[in-house]
C-alpha cells in the first residue's frame, strides 16, 4: 500500500505537485493519469525517495522507502527504462542491483528468463532496443518479488506485443495481491488495465475513484434517434428535464430521457423509428472533461485542437 499525505513539490515558483493525498491499495491496478506535465513522474520520484517533498510525505506500508529493511522486496519501480549504464551488460546491471539487498544470482537469472532477455543479457545495454530496455527495467523492478510495483509510462514506445505483455503483467501482479501503480497520459491504455484511477492535473488531485464510477460520473444518459418525424418527436418530448439537440433533418440526440421511455412514446404516437442508439460517454471523454481546465499546454489553434482530440 502506498500512502500519499499532502505530498507537495515546489520547483522555484512552480508547484509541480500540490497537496496530493491518496491511498493506493493492494490487489488492484491503480492508474495514475494526467496530461503531460501534471506531476505524475515527480510524484513517483517522491515515492521512490529520489526527490525530497517540499511538504507532506509518501510512505509504503507506513514507512518511507529509505526506512525499509529490504527496499527491493517492498517496492519495485520502473521510472525510466534508460536508467542503466550503457557499457554494462543487462545481467551485470541486475546483479549489481540484486547485490544491494542480498538477492540471489538465481533470482537474477529467473528474471532474465521471465522477461525474455536470455539472448541479450550478456550484451552491453547500449545495443538494446527500447523494448529490451523496458523489459530489463521490469526485470529490475521485480527482482525483490516486491509487494508494491510502480511503473512510470510502462508501455511508452513498446510494440503491440510488448504493450499486451505489460498489460497482462500488471493484471497478474495485482491478482497476486500486489499494489500496482502505473502512470500514463493515455486514457485508452488505462481503460484496458486499471481497476482504479487517480487523475491529476497541474499537480492537483482531480479524481480518485474506481474506473467504472469515473465513466458513470461523467456520462449523461443520451440517446440518438433517427426518424423522418424527428422534428415532431423533438417537439413532443422536449421539456425542462429533457434537452434535444438536432444533428440533421432526421437525427436528434435526447438527454435526460431513457431509451425505454422514448420507445414507449414512439409506440403510443405511431412514430417511425429508423435508429435508436444509447450513447455512453467513453473514458476518454470523461478524462477530457476532468482535465480540461488543468491542461498545462493548450494548443492555440482550434484546427489543431480538433485534430488532436
Amino acid at each position, binding site marked *: 500500500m502506498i500512502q500519499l499525505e499532502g505530498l507537495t513539490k515546489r520547483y522555484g515558483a512552480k508547484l509541480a505537485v500540490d497537496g496530493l493525498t491518496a491511498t493506493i491499495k493492494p490487489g488492484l491496478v491503480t492508474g495514475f493519469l494526467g496530461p503531460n506535465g501534471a506531476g505524475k513522474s515527480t510524484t513517483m520520484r517522491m515515492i521512490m525517495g529520489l526527490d525530497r517533498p517540499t511538504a507532506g510525505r509518501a510512505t509504503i506500508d507506513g514507512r518511507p522507502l*529509505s526506512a525499509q529493511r529490504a527496499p527491493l522486496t517492498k517496492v519495485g519501480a520502473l521510472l525510466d527504462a534508460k*536508467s542503466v549504464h550503457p557499457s*554494462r551488460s543487462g545481467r551485470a546491471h541486475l546483479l549489481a542491483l540484486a547485490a544491494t*539487498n542480498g538477492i540471489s544470482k538465481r533470482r537474477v537469472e529467473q528474471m532474465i528468463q521471465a522477461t525474455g532477455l536470455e539472448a541479450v543479457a550478456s550484451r552491453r545495454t547500449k545495443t538494446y532496443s527500447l523494448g529490451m530496455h523496458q523489459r530489463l527495467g521490469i526485470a529490475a523492478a521485480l527482482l525483490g*518479488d516486491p509487494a508494491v510495483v510502480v511503473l512510470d509510462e510502462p508501455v511508452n514506445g513498446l510494440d503491440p506485443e510488448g504493450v499486451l505483455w505489460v498489460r497482462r503483467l500488471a493484471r497478474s501482479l495485482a491478482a497476486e495481491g500486489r499494489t500496482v501503480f502505473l502512470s500514463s497520459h493515455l486514457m485508452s491504455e488505462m481503460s484496458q488495465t486499471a481497476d482504479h484511477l487517480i487523475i491529476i492535473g497541474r499537480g492537483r488531485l482531480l479524481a480518485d475513484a474506481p474506473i467504472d464510477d469515473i465513466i458513470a460520473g461523467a456520462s449523461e444518459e443520451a440517446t440518438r434517434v433517427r426518424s423522418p418525424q424527428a422534428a415532431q418527436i423533438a417537439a413532443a418530448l422536449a421539456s425542462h428535464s429533457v434537452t434535444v439537440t438536432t444533428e440533421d433533418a432526421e437525427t436528434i440526440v435526447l438527454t435526460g430521457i431513457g431509451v425505454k421511455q422514448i420507445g414507449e412514446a414512439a409506440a403510443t404516437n405511431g412514430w417511425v423509428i429508423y435508429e435508436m442508439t444509447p450513447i455512453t460517454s467513453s473514458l476518454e471523454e470523461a478524462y477530457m472533461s476532468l482535465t480540461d481546465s488543468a491542461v498545462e499546454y493548450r494548443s492555440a489553434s482550434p484546427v489543431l485542437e480538433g485534430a488532436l482530440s
Partner: protein
Amino acid sequence: MTAAAVAPTASVHVRKPRLTFARIAKSEWIKVRSVRSTWLLLVIFAISALGITTAMASFAAFRNPEEGEAGVFMGESDAGTALLNLATMAVVYIAMIVVTVYASLAIGSEYSSGAIRSTLSAAPRRGSVFGAKTFVIAGTSALATAVLIAAAWAIGAGILTGRGLNPALTSDGLRQMGLTVVYAIAIALIAVGAGFITRSTAGGMATVLGLLLVLPMVLNFVPSKVGAYALAALPDQAAAAMVSNKTDYLIGGVWGAVAVLAGWVVLAIVGGYATFTRRDA
C-alpha cells in the same frame, strides 16, 4: 513468455534479503568490474608506470663502480634510493591521471546514464551509497597503486642488478611506497567528491586535473610570496612533500603537508556528501 512466468516462487531467496553497507559495497564492486573502462584504465596504468620504470632503469646513464668511482645513478650514489624515486615518480604521475579519470567516470557515468536512479531505488540510503561508492573506488585505486609500485620496484631492481648495481629496499623506502598509496587514495577521494558535486564525468575530471596538473604550472609563474604559499597549498605539492619527507615544506613541514592534503580530501568529501544527500537525484 507469459506474464504468469514472472510470478515468483517462494523459495527464490537463499539468504534473507536485507539492505546493508557491505552489500551496497559489493554492488559497487560488481559495477566497477563490469565496465570495460575500468580494465582499460588498469592496463594503461600498468603499461605506463612499469614502462617508464623499465625504460629509465635500463637506459639512464650511470657511472660504473668498476671504473673506480662510486656508482652514481640518477643523481643518487645509492642505487636503492634512486630506484625508489624513479618508481614513485612513474607511479604518481600516471596515478594522478588514471585515478582521476577512473573515479570521475565511476560517479559521472551514473549521472549521465541515469543509473543513479536505479541505484537509489534499490538502495535508498544515501549516506550508505556514498560511503560504499567512495570505499570501493578509493580501495581499488589503492590496490592498483600498491601492486604497481611494488611491481615497478621489483622490475627496476632486476634490471639494475643486471647492470651491476645493488638496489636495497630500506624501511624508509617502504614508507615512501606506502605514502604513494596514501596519495593515490587522496586523489581518488578528491575526485569522488568532485564527481558528486559536479555530477558529470567531464566536470569532475576537469576540476581535479586542473587542481593537480594545471594550477601548479600556473602558480609557478606567480613570483610573490603569496604565489609560493598558494603553490604549496595545492594537493600535489603537499603530497610530494609528504611522500618525499620534505622537512622544508613551506606550510609546516611534513606534518603540515599531511594536514594540507587531508584538508583537500575533507573539503571534497564533505562537499560531495552534502550535495549527494541533499539534492534530488
